[in-house]
C-alpha cells in the first residue's frame, strides 16, 4: 500500500516530535524585530524594507514584534530554529527543574496506582531541550537527565503492572504521555483485539453445549 506498514496504525517517534514541536514555548530573543516608531516616522519606507515573518501555520505577530531580552511565546519549532542560530535562548518550562521533577518522582513512588500529572509531551520536550538547548536550563543537564530517566523507568514499571489487567473492553491511562502511549500502542491494541475476538466467539444467548 502507499503507506508503509509501520506507519499504518501508529505514529513514528519522529511524527510525535513533529506534533510536539507545534506547541508554544517561551523564549528570550537576542535581537529586535519590532519596528521603531521613530524610525518609521522619519524614514517612511523603513518598515517595508525590513523583511517580515509571514507564516500560515503559526501566529507571526509575536515574531514581528520581538524585543531583545523580553520574553515572548513562539512555536517550539521556531524557537529551536532561532536557538540553532544563536538568536534566542529558550525558557525551560516550570516542570523541567530538579525540584519539580523530584516532586513528580516522589508522587510516582508514593502512588503506585496512578501516574503523576506531567504534561502530555514531557518526554519529547525534555529530550529536545537537553540536546538542543542544554545551556539554557536552570540546573545542570546531567542531573536533569538523571531525573527524567528515573521518572521514565518508574512509569515504565507501572505500565508493566497495568498490562496485567488488560481486558477486552477498556483501559484507563490517565496522565500517560503521548510518546509512552505510542510505544505501547501496537502491543495493547494487538492483545485487546485478540481478547475481543476470543470473547466474541461465544454468544451469550446460546446455551452451552
Amino acid at each position, binding site marked *: 500500500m502507499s503507506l508503509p506498514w509501520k506507519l499504518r496504525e501508529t505514529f513514528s517517534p519522529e511524527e510525535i516530535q513533529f506534533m510536539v514541536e507545534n506547541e508554544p514555548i517561551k523564549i528570550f530573543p537576542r535581537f529586535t524585530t519590532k519596528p521603531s516608531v521613530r524610525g518609521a516616522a522619519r524614514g517612511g519606507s523603513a518598515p517595508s524594507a525590513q523583511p517580515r515573518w509571514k507564516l500560515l501555520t503559526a501566529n507571526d505577530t509575536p515574531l514581528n514584534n520581538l524585543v531583545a531580552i523580553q520574553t515572548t511565546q513562539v512555536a517550539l519549532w521556531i524557537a529551536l530554529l532561532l536557538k540553532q542560530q544563536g538568536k534566542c535562548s529558550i525558557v525551560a518550562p516550570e516542570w523541567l527543574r530538579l525540584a519539580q521533577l523530584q516532586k513528580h518522582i516522589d508522587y510516582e513512588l508514593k502512588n503506585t496506582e496512578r501516574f503523576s500529572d506531567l504534561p502530555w509531551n514531557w518526554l519529547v520536550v525534555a529530550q529536545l531541550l537537553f540536546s538542543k538547548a542544554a545551556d539554557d536550563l536552570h540546573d545542570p543537564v546531567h542531573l536533569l537527565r538523571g531525573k527524567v530517566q528515573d521518572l521514565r523507568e518508574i512509569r515504565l514499571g507501572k505500565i508493566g503492572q497495568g498490562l496485567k489487567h488488560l481486558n477486552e473492553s477498556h483501559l484507563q491511562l490517565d496522565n500517560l504521555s503521548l510518546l509512552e502511549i505510542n510505544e505501547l500502542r501496537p502491543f495493547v491494541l494487538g492483545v485487546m483485539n485478540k*481478547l475481543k475476538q*476470543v470473547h466474541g466467539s461465544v454468544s451469550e444467548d446460546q446455551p452451552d453445549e
Partner: protein
Amino acid sequence: MSYYDIDDILADASKFPCRFNYDIPGLGYLEGNAGKEIRKNAKVELPLWLARILAIVGGDAGLNDEDALPFVELMQPEMFSPKVLNAIKSGPVTLDVHSINSHFYALAIKWATLFNDRDLIEVLNYMLLERCQEINNHASSVQLENVGRGGSQGTFMLTLDEFEKVLYKDSHESCKDTKKWVIRK
C-alpha cells in the same frame, strides 16, 4: 480474520478429524482411494475450510429438518483435548504452543465459535493474558548493541504461535524505534 488474510487461509488449512454420517459415492479421494465411495463412519482428516461447511449442511435437510444429520461430525482434535487444556492451565508461559499448532489462537477461536465452547474461551483468555506479559517483557528489552541486527532471544521465542509472533514483532519494532529516537537525541 478477513477473506484475503494469509494467516487466516493457512489456519483454515489445518486438518481436523471427522467422521462421515453417510455413504457417499465418488468421494473416496478424501480417504486416498479415488473413484471409490466413502463409507459411513469412515474417519477422515479434513481441512477446516471443508470440515466446517460439511459439519453444518446435511443430507436430507429439506425433508425433515429435525433429524437432518450433517454430512460429517467433527471429532475433538488433539490440540483441544483435556491433556492440552490442563497443560495450558498449569503453565501457559512454559508451554510450547508452536509445537501444538502454529495457528493455535485462530483455530481455538474458530472452534469455540462452532461449538460455543465457554471452557475453551476461559482457558484461552487466561493463556493469552499470561503469555502476553512475557511477550511484552521480551519485546521491550532492547539491547543496544543488538539494535539493527536482532540478537538471539532464547527459547521462549521458539514457542510462539503465529499471532504471537506478529504481536511480538510489532511491539518490538515500536520499542526499538522509541529507544532509537531517545538515544539519537
